[in-house]
């Protein structure tokens, strides 16, 4: 039986540049992978901006996006240790039309997801309708608190479906359901699927608990091999309509692609 990737997917979580333990990460190689898997758009951040100089990393990301204008978009990585001139920095970079949101990696940058500095970033993003893809909004409880404190913040919880521990405990499921309940009437809370450690059935479980419209396809391409993540959707227990939503329509609506 043939597997047909019949949906032009949008991958909301990719990485530019070389990281450890990943190969063929030059941007033209990423584009080849995208072609192979029928991924039309990739939205990403540079690995350097997460683990090194965020300014140089963001410049690198922009360069890739400008080279592949009809395939790539980028997140501007903000390091919460360097936010004195945040507003000017964001405005200057967003004028290039290559960036579509902000990326945070609070763990890597030594902050809690609710530190004073990080909250300033949420505040700014809320005011200017900038989606924030965060590697970690904390536990499900903390993510719920952030969602309540910043009701207009467009939140994308990266690796969301892997945050459930292995094995899933009943108390963990309760936290997930509590978060789903707290954001039920809130717009713009999303979970991406980028991860290597999704428990069997977790993507489907999250789609059921949060609603398919809140699940965004992400692969961590450039760091992880995208074939694993896209196979989880095509081979998962989803209807064709759900696959369409997760792989394309939700992100298309969010990012206006």
């Amino acid at each position: 039986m043939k597997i047909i990737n019949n949906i032009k997917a949008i991958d909301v979580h990719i990485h530019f540049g070389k990281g450890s333990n990943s190969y063929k990460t030059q941007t033209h190689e990423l584009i080849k992978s995208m072609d192979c898997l029928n991924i039309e758009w990739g939205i990403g951040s540079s690995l350097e901006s997460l683990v090194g100089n965020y300014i140089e990393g963001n410049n690198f990301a922009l360069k890739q996006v400008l080279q592949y204008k009809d395939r790539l978009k980028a997140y501007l990585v903000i390091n919460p240790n360097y936010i004195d001139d945040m507003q000017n920095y964001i405005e200057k970079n967003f004028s290039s039309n290559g960036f579509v949101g902000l990326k945070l990696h609070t763990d890597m940058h030594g902050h809690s997801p609710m530190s004073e500095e990080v909250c300033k970033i949420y505040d700014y993003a809320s005011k200017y309708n900038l989606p924030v893809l965060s590697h970690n909004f904390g536990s499900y409880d903390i993510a719920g608190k952030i969602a309540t404190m910043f009701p207009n913040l467009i939140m994308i919880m990266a690796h969301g479906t892997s945050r459930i521990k292995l094995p899933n405990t009943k108390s963990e499921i309760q936290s997930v359901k509590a978060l789903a309940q707290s954001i039920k009437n809130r717009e713009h809370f999303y979970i991406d699927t980028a991860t290597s450690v999704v428990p069997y059935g977790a993507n489907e479980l999250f789609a059921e608990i949060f609603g398919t419209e809140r699940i965004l396809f992400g692969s961590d391409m450039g760091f992880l091999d995208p074939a694993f993540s896209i196979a989880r959707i095509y081979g998962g227990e989803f209807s064709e309509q759900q696959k369409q939503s997760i792989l394309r329509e939700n992100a298309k609506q969010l990012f206006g692609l």
Partner: protein
Amino acid sequence: MKVNMKIFDCNVSYGFEIMPAAKKFEFVKDLIADMDKHNILKAMVYNCEGKQNLSCFSNLKLSENIKSYKDRLCAVYCFRPNIGTEMYTPAQWEQSIKDNDIKGIYFYPNDYQFDVDLLGSYFQVFNSMKLPVFVEFAAGFGFAYKIDFSALHKFLSKYTNTPFILTNAGMMNDFEIFRLSELHNNFYLELSGFQGNMALEEYVSRFGSERLLFGSRAPFFSPVPMIGKIHYSKLKASDKENICYNNMQRLVDEVNYENHQ
């Protein structure tokens, strides 16, 4: 997800989980149903209860549990010290392995040390039979290392007849995995955790495909991502066949209970 490939999954389990995950195979028939769903022809299977407590009880249930599926399932014992039971001495392990047609040993050194010297008398038995030894590594973000690579290197150097299969590894351990592959012909890698961007292709380009094994870690993880990766990759058909089936079948065929060294 069904594809046109023969698949021998080297890493699946069944049994009663004290903390069940979203998916579980409490009984062997649940495992078989999932294998059928994904067109997985054969599997190396252990009883997960052996990871949680004394493994002797679950090991002894294993052969009985899978006897109706002997053409599809190969039995793997979980190793634990099992002090004070009838499955404690190396001789007792050896006899039980032979009596029950066991084709592998699974180590999950969560609360005991994978010490090459202290466990040497057991390793000698397994080595003499060329019995595949699976070791669960479980490293990476949020997971503690259960074992260090120097112990693996020592084991591989000493027990060269043993096919050593590292499971749940990859992602941040490529250097060690490549180095062990370079130094030891009896080092094998179960691929479920090896998910770095194009890492599989990189490995094959350096070392070939003969020591790579399709593994899912079902029921904790779905076999679908692994099936998808193999399907989508640009590896040669012969490499895919090696990874998906031939390599594990070869290791099973080479187990020899009478080959004492």
